[in-house]
């Protein structure tokens, strides 16, 4: 099948790659975290202990904290947390990639529209 719309075909391939990489990485980390959790606790039960809940007032600070080693001390929980972060970052990076693409092809309208989406996301992710 030849590309139907040459303008769109490249971006579609790029966005596919971002989506697949993000989701695959996230799910692998989550799976690893769950297996570790099982090995540690010896049970498959869904836990509602406070340590299972993640909370961050600012998504970007939350990521920074984990990079600085201020995340969960337990490896299983750390893997699960990073998996969740990567999953949440996937659509975010998709917007950033779209923005770069629209800048690349100098599509002013869509640079504007994509910027609006990006700004809304950045505000909610950081301004809580």
């Amino acid at each position, binding site marked *: 099948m030849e590309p139907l719309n040459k303008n769109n075909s490249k971006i579609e391939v790029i966005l596919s790659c971002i989506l697949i990489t993000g989701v695959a990485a996230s799910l692998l980390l989550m799976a690893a975290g769950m297996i570790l959790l099982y090995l540690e606790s010896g049970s*498959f039960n869904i836990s509602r202990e406070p340590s299972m809940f993640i909370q961050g007032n600012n998504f970007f600070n939350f990521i920074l904290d984990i990079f600085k080693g201020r995340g969960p001390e337990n490896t299983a929980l750390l893997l699960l947390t990073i998996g969740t972060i990567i999953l949440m970052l996937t659509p*975010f990076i998709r917007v950033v990639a779209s923005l770069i693409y629209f800048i690349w092809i100098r599509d002013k309208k869509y640079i504007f529209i994509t910027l609006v*989406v990006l700004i809304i996301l950045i505000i909610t992710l950081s301004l809580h």
Partner: protein
Amino acid sequence: MNLNTALLIFLSAIIGFLGSLTGLGGASILIPILVFFGIPIKEAIAAGMIAIIGSSSGSALSYVRNQMANIRLAMFLEIFTVIGGIVGATLTVMISPVYLYFFFAVFLATSFIKTKSSTRDITDVEDKRDLLTRWLSCEGTYYDKSCDKKIKYYPKNTLLGGAGMFIAGLAAGMLGIGAGAFKTTVHENILKMPTKVSSATSNFIIGMTALGGASVYLFSGLLNLSLMAPIAIGTTIGAIIGGRILNRIKDKYLKILFLIIVSALIIQMLYKGIALIWSL
């Protein structure tokens, strides 16, 4: 019966698979099931929101590769759904869970509304469009396998479509679901997009809406790692498999089975909501 990780992955995979086949949402079925197993409704909603990012990105893969999704229009509509998603999630965090049971029941009931596909009046004429739509220049082409043709289409009514998408985002953020069926209805009936493009574009948008909602749930500390991980893994795997065979299966009985499950879930949500009111 006790809910454990293995059972949850299994259930999520089946629901994700059936959800992407029938178009009747995955998370909207899964959340009432979690509630059935005794998970507090707000936690179930927050977990659903995260899982949706995975399943929508997972099934978007095959759509985007087939160049069905209208990426430009999706970007425009995301402005509305993301705001809707954030507002919806904020409401859920603030209100009493009682309302959520009833909202959920009402939302599930909309699965019974038969949406009439209006694919026939797709505009292929440029000047039927309003000013904003023309400015957006969001027309697209897609390749239809069934008739081996490239089909060009011109979406219409983008502003009204945006308003519809705000409502879809509101419901999605509030209930932790994708609201895919609602989004597709807006795409087809208001924006006049072809059916295949509608579902592909809707899937693309769902992930972004879910991120808006998820950020609110992260802030409120409702995200439970041991609950989210099995759901995200299960529904995503289910959705990827389902997305690959989308449009190849059209099973009426499957849909009937799903609607029976939905009826049971509606009754359960109403029961929980009423029981909660009685206990107050």
